[in-house]
């Protein structure tokens, strides 16, 4: 194995390891706080449409009840890649490091996702797929949905963790009432 190949593999491993960590955020770990869990959408449940623009959401806040299951229809109406991620501020901060790595390795390139790179088998069965249940990562024009159960009250935000976007203000509050 050449040195450069080894370096790529090492980076890939570190990405997939941390990605795994992010995946387990959904069920909560370490922080003693969690943002809820994936769920099956019940009949008559509530749907919230979220538009992602450059670089902000519409709406910028919404209300939920403890235990409520909400379906989010998320659409990227901007011209850059954006994420919709439900988590605590600490979870977002941790995820931002991973997203930075995805940018540095060319997975996120402005308005494009390098799917080939995301799908690539890094040799240990792991990939740089962004497939955590609490988030979607969308190219311009793409739409996806998340069904999420807000199991407990907490300090929960929805946020885009593409580098710089959260800091520029691309986040919103989930208010419990």
């Amino acid at each position, binding site marked *: 194995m050449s040195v450069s190949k080894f370096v790529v593999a090492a980076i890939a491993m570190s990405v997939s390891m941390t990605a795994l960590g992010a995946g387990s955020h959904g069920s909560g770990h370490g922080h003693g706080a969690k943002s809820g869990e994936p769920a099956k959408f019940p009949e008559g449940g509530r749907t919230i449409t979220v538009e992602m623009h*450059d*670089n*902000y959401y519409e709406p910028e806040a919404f209300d939920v009840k403890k235990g409520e299951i909400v379906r989010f229809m998320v659409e990227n109406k901007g011209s*850059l890649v954006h994420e919709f991620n439900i988590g605590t501020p600490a979870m977002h901060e941790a995820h931002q490091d991973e997203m930075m790595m995805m940018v540095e390795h060319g997975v996120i390139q*402005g308005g494009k996702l390098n799917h080939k790179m995301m799908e690539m088998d890094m040799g240990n069965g792991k990939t740089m797929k962004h497939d955590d249940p609490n988030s979607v990562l969308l190219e311009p024009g793409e739409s996806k949905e998340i069904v999420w159960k807000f199991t407990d009250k907490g300090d929960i935000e929805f946020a885009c963790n593409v580098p*710089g*976007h959260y*800091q*520029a*203000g691309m986040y919103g509050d989930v208010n419990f009432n």
Partner: protein
Amino acid sequence: MKTTLLSGALALLLPVISLAGEYDLTVDRVEIDTGDFVKEGIGYNGASPGPVLRFKEGEDVTINVTNNLDEMTSIHWHGLILPFNQDGVPGISFAGIQPGETFTYKFPITQAGTYWFHSHSGFQEPDGAYGAIVIEPEGREPFRYNREYVVQLTDKHPHSGDRIMRNLKMMPDYYNREQQTVGEFFSDVSENGLMNTVKDRMAWGGMRMMKADVEDLQGFTGLINGKGPDQNWTGIFKPGERIRLRFINSSAMTYFDIRIPGLEMTVVQADGNNVQPVSVDEFRIGVAETYDVIVRPRDDKAYTIFAESMGRSGYARATLAPEEGMEGSVPELRESARLTMADMGGMHGMDHGSMEGMDHSQMAGMDHSAMKDMDHSNMEDMDHSNMEGMDHSQMAGMDHSAMKGMDHSNMEGMDHSNMAAGGASDPFYAPGSGLVPTAANGGKFLSYADLKAQSPLYEDREPTRDIELRLTGNMERYTWSINGVKYEDADPIRLQYGERVRFKFVNETMMTHPMHLHGMWSMLDVGAGQWNPVKHTISVQPGTTVFMETEVDEPGQWAFHCHLSYHAAAGMFRKVIVEGGPESTKAAVSAQTTGVGGDA
């Protein structure tokens, strides 16, 4: 009847719909107190800096400028896209504003963001004639903040601009305190022995020593919003708030490295145009550039805005605090950057391709501007680490091809940290440059390479023409020029309306030049295609080649120059004429350009 009614109704509505604002500015003699010294200068509405002009995108502005000086004046709206006869450059856009005269500028505001204005006459700008422009966008911003402050920097010098220029012309290193002195010769003698010192210096000829020219104007006091470091301009915040800071560098000559210890800064705009947000610990702001950043201080304490000059000869300081009077600690100035051989790599015909093991890290302030056709390709293992301030301007046609294994074993202080192999790197600095900035906390320092347009302003297309501009100069005579020709001897650059021109800047000097094209955008090539950032001022580092593209979409004639005041005045300046364009504007252009005089 129906249509008449309709148009009548529209006519009634229109004045209500269209925004129009009228603003008055007086140009006055003012007193400037930096805390270090008090100095007479020039300001607007009785103060320097002048007021912050707040416009709204889509507004038609009328600005009445009354000249209360006993000399001609002018105001240039730096970065604004407007008809050329409103651009305020005497001799190019208009005839200037005579003493006692009121000139009325009228133009539509077609953009948003942070900009500034300044006199384009003589050295009135370094003497204090500048202010800020803030334009609110029609739609929402692509970022959020709770409050905002203009943070306008300058390098106020106790000498007037005229006097500085005279002194620089007389003695180019007049304001260079770092220069090597006779005393240093003797200290080298005591360290290295007389014979070695003499031999070392003799070996390289002329030996008129001159040191670092990272900055050729030292001895200033850095001001933020008109306040010196001890006067400490303070912006108030509530912990947890998001603050937009609109940094503007209105210095005559000084680049600043800016940081706020304890806060990450998210850069959201450069030169008035939104960029994809990038979070940094520190950034370098070139003369005439602007950067908007968002910070979020969460703690109930004071934070220091610390702006060190690139050459570390001075600083500006301000504070963000929950209450007036609170202060954060003020860091020490870091050590001065030193030019390396790499920073001179752009100079004429030199081939250093095969040199190895050389360390020139202590060499600085060298002028090799007249060297030609040198071939050093077989030099090896040289160490010149204590050479400083050499003048090689008379060398020509040298062939050192047989030199090998030179041993200057009594030299001390070998340092390879500035060579390409190690240390900091930035694609916009020469490989191995001594000027590459690093963040004080070891974190992220903004590079031009990080700047990507938030949304492309123009459709991306192939340039229709390339124009090479070599940035040239002779430090010995303090002449600065483009392609070796100074402004008064140069033909204008002629562009055709509708072209997309690719400018190639080749910096053959040892100084950084912030190049500013008036009237049309400069799209800096960072390799991001349609996402290349849209700027009005582009810094070109020593020994580097930088490309920018311009959509030639504004008829008329425009200024194009290095924004270092004394370089522009010395001749690093061009007139750009845009030929052709819509019929309606052509007539206006020819009417305007006849009988234009002035002092540009």
